[in-house]
């Protein structure tokens, strides 16, 4: 049993490290994790689910805005991108944030093609991240179920 826990913990550690290494997450995610304590044991999960809800909403908004047959309201798209950028920055979703920075520039340049491309990338990216984090939470759950504690992963 202990061996199983240790294995899971190792797996978890490696998985988290890979998420950092692959640039899905950055320090802010660590920050987020550090904010989770006994008082709010599901803080990270709560914030992230809020974040992904936000993603669905904002991406939907932008898709609608960019789908207009007439003139595209780049201001509206820009406002949504800004929101997403702020959110992704706060949760440490590094790749999404990076895309948002580009997206915002394209939006300011009123580059329709670029915006559409970027939106697609954002869509793919946040979904990928969501899946990855889902896996992470599953691992955490498994560790807890196996009677272990979720290890602190020091990314430095």
């Amino acid at each position, binding site marked *: 049993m202990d061996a199983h826990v240790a294995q899971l913990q190792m797996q978890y550690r490696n998985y988290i490290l890979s998420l950092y290494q692959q640039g899905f997450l950055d*320090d*802010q995610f*660590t*920050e*987020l994790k*550090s*904010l*989770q*304590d*006994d*008082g*709010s044991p599901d*803080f990270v999960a*709560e*914030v992230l689910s*809020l*974040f992904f809800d*936000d993603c669905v909403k904002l991406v939907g908004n932008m898709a609608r805005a960019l789908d207009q047959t007439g003139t595209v309201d780049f201001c509206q798209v820009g*406002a949504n991108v*800004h*929101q997403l*950028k*702020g*959110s992704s*920055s*706060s*949760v*440490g979703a590094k790749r999404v944030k990076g895309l948002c*920075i580009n997206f915002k520039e394209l939006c300011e340049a009123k580059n329709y093609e670029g915006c559409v491309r970027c939106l697609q990338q954002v869509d793919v990216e946040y979904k990928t991240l969501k899946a990855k984090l889902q896996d992470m939470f599953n691992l955490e759950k498994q560790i807890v179920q196996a009677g272990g504690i979720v290890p*602190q992963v020091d990314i*430095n």
Partner: protein
Amino acid sequence: MVVCEMETDHQNEEMDVENLSSMWPEHVGGAQPHNQFNVEKPAGDSDTLKEVDIAEKRTMADLKRLPELMNTTDQGSSQLTNLVKQWEYMQDHAVRLLREELKILTKQREEAEAKELKIIEEHNFETEEPENVPVLDESSDLLRRFKEKKRDALVGRKRIEIDEEFDTVAYWKQKALSMEKMLEASTERERRLIEKLEESLKTMESHSAPVEELTQNLKRAEGFLHFILQNAPIVMGHQDKDLRYLFIYNKFPTLREHDILGKTDVEIFHGGGVKESEDFKREVLEKGKASKREITFETDLFGSKTFLIYVEPVYNKAREKIGINYMGMEVTDQVIKREKMAKLREDNAVRKAMESELTKTIHITEETMRAKQMLATMSHEIRSPLSGVVGMAEILSTTKLDKEQRQLLNVMISSGDLVLQLINDILDLSKVESGNVFRFLILLCGHVSRFLCCCFLGVMKLEATKFRPREVVKHVLQTAAASLKKDLTLEGNIADEVPILVVGDVLRIRQILTNLISNAIKFTHQGKVGIKLKVIPEPSFASDNALNADAEEQNGLAETSVWIRCDVYDTGIGIPENALPCLFKKYMQASADHARKYGGTGLGLAICKQLVELMGGQLTVTSTVNLGSTFTFILPYKVATSNDHSDDQDEFSDMVDHQPEPDDTTEGYFQFKPLLGSIYSNGGPVVGNNFLPHKVMLTSPLKLINGFVDNTGQSEAVQVENGGYMDEARNETRSGHCPESAHQYENGNGQCPSKESESCSSSQASSEMESELTVSSPREDVKTENEVKETSKQPKILLVEDNKINIMVAKSMMKQLGYTFDIANNGVEAINAVKCSCYDLVLMDVCMPVLDGLKATRLIRSYEESGNWDAAVEAGVDIKTLEDKQMCMRSTNRLPIIAMTANTLAESSEECYANGMDSFISKPVTLQKLKECLQQYLH
């Protein structure tokens, strides 16, 4: 003979008439002195002729259409009258010519008749003179031959038949009679001829063929000319050698011909250009070469007009110059257009130049922006791993280490701190100005560690912090010794009168010292390098130093000022005297050889000098070649009492030796040997080294961990002086609910004392400290969060943020820090919140819908100044009516507003400051940043 002549003349006359059409122009040319056109003159004739020729040449192309045009256009018909007139003149002329001829002929005939009469008389007298016969015979032969010929041609053959015998009277009589008959016949013929001639003259007048042809030619030529010139803005003229007009053609005359003819230009008009044209004509006349020129006239007569003038000299048949032909075309509009075009082209060129200049500027600006961005990113990239290094080193310092290891670690940590501090300065975008970026980048490529911050000199603010000069000197030497690869002795000598604690910008002073020492080491191969500190009287140049006053104000303490002279000396190669003046210039080294041999950017000394001057001091150098150099800088410092500093957490607490001996802070002499062997020895009576932690950088990702190692007996005074102690106390307390912190503590040294043991071992110090904290240092949030909650009123914080995830994260952080806050989702909500309740701090997002943070801050500031919300109402903010007037009591105080920026260029810190914000936190907000900020602004 006479008859013969006469008849030949007649024949010629006839022939002339026949050939009239082709001969006509020459005649016209040669015989028009009486012509009534007053414009006529000899030279004009050749022109006319030429133009006629041209017209005829063009007949093929033009004349078919010309009559048509002549008949269909007004111009054409208006000319017909002129043509008729001219034709009449020519007819008259022809008749006159013929009449003259006739006169001559008549005269000749009369002469011939007189002669004949004489001959007959002679014959009558000398008929019998034989010697005359041959003559007569001869003449009669000639006569006969001629007469026969004439008779054959004109009258037919008539033979004189003489029946009488030769040389008889009858014969002569008969001959005389027959000759008389012949004479009569001849006279009769002559008379008939004259009649015929007269008849022919008469018919000639009515004979229209050649005249008509001529007329038509003329008509064509003239018609062509007039058709062409009708509305052409052309003036043509001929002037004689004295430039007097003999002929002028001007379609739109302002003067009549008699006003012009016989006069020169200058006699006719006055004004600009007249003289020029006259001179030009004269020039052409003199040079004998046709030429063109554009002349602008400015005359009363026809205003301002530009003419393109063509002038050619005119010669007579003897190739003598007799005048000029002149043709002017008005090109005023064209000239105006051309000038406009030129101006346009010029404007265009200027605009293009400006555009390219602008593009360049934009390019540079873009580059600058990029550089700025890159710099921010780069600094961040450097800072992150560096804070890791420093943090780790700090953790390491809490483990069990021997003395030597600890000393090395101390150097490492304090160097790391220095770099971190410098990078933090850089990261503060407000300090990054375009010009400096490039300088910075240049530097960064070269001497990253040494001169990292120097480039920001121009925009750097001086910090006033308390520090111990002895520590600084010692540490600089220690650092230098750590990397020393030469057999040099490094020594420090501080005079006793130098205060233990002074106030100044320790970071810069350390930088200067480090620079000078590394410079000295670089140029010294044996012997020693050292720093000497002593107090000097105030130098003359500093009596009215403004910086002094500033420093005093900043400090807010009325301490006494002290001037300290710092000598950095070496026994190196020295500097030749002639190289001294350029020593402090940027990018200069004493000589090119030195530059090659020793490398370096040559910026170090220039930066040192600037730094020293910035702080109100002076940097000088004395040197002897091969003996060494001494760099001396004198700076003013404030003297801080040693009690003041114990609670100052912002203090740059440099490494200090905590020795059991009472002179640990006053020790005046250090010596370091190179770290070639196993150890560098501390010169003084040092027994043990105590390590006190360094202030961890604001942005360190690690929790603030302060090791506190007590290897040897530790004096209480030292503990009190150490600001880090309080940090530790806090962390210690917090570690209970901060697992990460606890975790790190587990790695700590076993000897690390607990708070309890600490307070036990130095209870006196602790109590002293506690009292200071609460009384003399209200700014410091030295108590644990729990304590804050318990002992002081919970500060009211307003978070203005539209992103709910950000709010959630911030909420969690605030909870960790033990604060609660109100939330506003945009600027308008923020204003209403500020209006309705008193806040101690506002955290303001910059980019928000409805009303952004910058505007909201401006409006709040405007309210603070004016006491009313008019500006906000004006800006369209829906202000709720104020319910509780007492709530705005605080309005007289400035509400601290902290911006939360995404650190993009659009949300620059300059803009935050410009809009009245007090500080800013870069996003994403971390616990550490938030904590720092709250500590600073919540009293």
